[in-house]
């Protein structure tokens, strides 16, 4: 579920309707690697402001077990 592109415009700045929320954990998976790490903003094209919100949302989702903290690469 990696999201790697060379886009220069932040996807959240482009589309205001997308809400960064820990409850939308399926959408957040786009910004994680297969092993569950958060992909850096410079890779996904997300701006600093939204990357901060994204990180908080992912960490909340991990806390309540909606997302894993880490996935064994052999099982990914």
């Amino acid at each position, binding site marked *: 579920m990696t999201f790697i592109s060379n886009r220069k415009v932040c996807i959240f700045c482009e589309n205001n309707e997308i809400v960064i*929320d*820990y*409850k939308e954990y399926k959408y957040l998976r786009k910004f994680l690697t297969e092993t569950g790490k958060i992909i850096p903003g410079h890779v996904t094209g997300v701006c600093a402001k939204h990357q901060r919100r994204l990180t908080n949302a992912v960490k909340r989702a*991990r*806390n*309540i*077990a*909606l997302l*894993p*903290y880490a996935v064994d690469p052999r099982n990914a």
Partner: protein
Amino acid sequence: MNYYETLYIVHSALEAGRLKDIVLTVEESLKENGGQVVTTEVWGKKKLGYYIDKQKYGTYILIQFKSDGTKNNNFNLQMEHNPSILAYMTVKIEEDGIREQTEDLDSQIAGKEAKASRSATIAEDVKSDDAEESKDEPVAEDVKSDDAEESKDEPVAEDVKSDDAEESKDEPATEEKVEG
């Protein structure tokens, strides 16, 4: 007054009646701590991101409430001491984040249970279908034998052609008769 929401995971072994009891106890403890329930949403049984108390699955329930926030610590403590609740998380939300409750609690729980049982039956059906498919193989052979029979029928078609040929042979005779 602020808005808060608590997402908690109930042990997946609890069935409809007991699940409702848990939800009602949580709501009661929330009211005792000065909260005012706005929305309760049952997400249903989900696979957890990691094992909690050796459990792989859990039933997620979201409860949104209005409170001044002074007694949220007490509420969280009560959640902590509830053995049926695997995990919980209370966060502050904006008023925009409040969701409208479309269904009442009973129908939500019943709906999720029905969905879970349906998916379970579908999974069973798929398994039984696989088993039937293995049984169906002789049928496939029957089809092949039908094909073989059809191939046997082909000579009949040839017979028809030969009949046509005979008819064509007969035609000149009739012409001769007309001439005669």
